């Protein structure tokens, strides 16, 4: 019986080199899996790109808060401005949380990198939800 992996197995009962190579490749993949997570450079690059996204989100937030303050408080009365500040405080808190998640992600070792990335993703999702609730166009 001939197989694709080991065509000559039936003819000559030796250990098939292709099978060994396949097993070695699986072993290498397994060892890479055991090493876990991205390389330090990949991790830094992912954090950098994510940080730029959060920065863009923060810039949009600044403009939206400015517009809200300008339209809600044309006379800039202190009570009115305090109300606007209170309304936008959760958005600042969510951006701060995303920033802290990025710092944790960058400081995470390879084993914890995926967990830290997941925590950042959740923080970013929370921030975008808060911003959408406040009417910020994303």
């Amino acid at each position, binding site marked *: 019986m001939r197989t694709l992996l080991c065509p000559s197995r039936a003819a000559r009962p030796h250990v098939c080199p292709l099978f060994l190579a396949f097993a070695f490749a699986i072993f290498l993949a397994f060892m890479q899996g055991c090493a876990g997570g991205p390389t330090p*450079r990949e991790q830094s690059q992912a954090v950098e790109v994510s940080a730029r996204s959060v920065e863009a989100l923060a810039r949009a937030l600044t403009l*939206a808060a400015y517009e809200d303050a300008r339209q809600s408080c044309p006379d800039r009365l202190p009570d009115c401005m305090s109300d606007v500040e209170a309304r936008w405080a959760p958005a600042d808190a969510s951006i701060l949380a995303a920033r802290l998640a990025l*710092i944790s992600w960058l400081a995470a070792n390879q084993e914890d990198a995926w967990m830290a990335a997941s925590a950042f993703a959740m923080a970013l999702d929370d921030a975008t939800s808060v911003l959408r609730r406040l009417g910020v166009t994303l």
Partner: protein
Amino acid sequence: MPVAQIVIAALGIIAQALPGFLASFTGSADDAAALDKARHAIAAIPHHPALDGINRWRDEEVDEITQELPIGPAAQRKR
């Protein structure tokens, strides 16, 4: 003959894995540069972006008042 095939197959796989393996030793400078760029990108995120926007509107008022009052930096510049 089978041993030669095994060795050739193993060498082929090692040749594929070797560049990545070596890069883990030689890429430390690139790692440091990438880490530095990531730190800068995080530092560029404003701490209180919404409050910054609200304060920008509040500061525009201050500028208008100082321009109208006969005192303050704007008035001194006019003199």
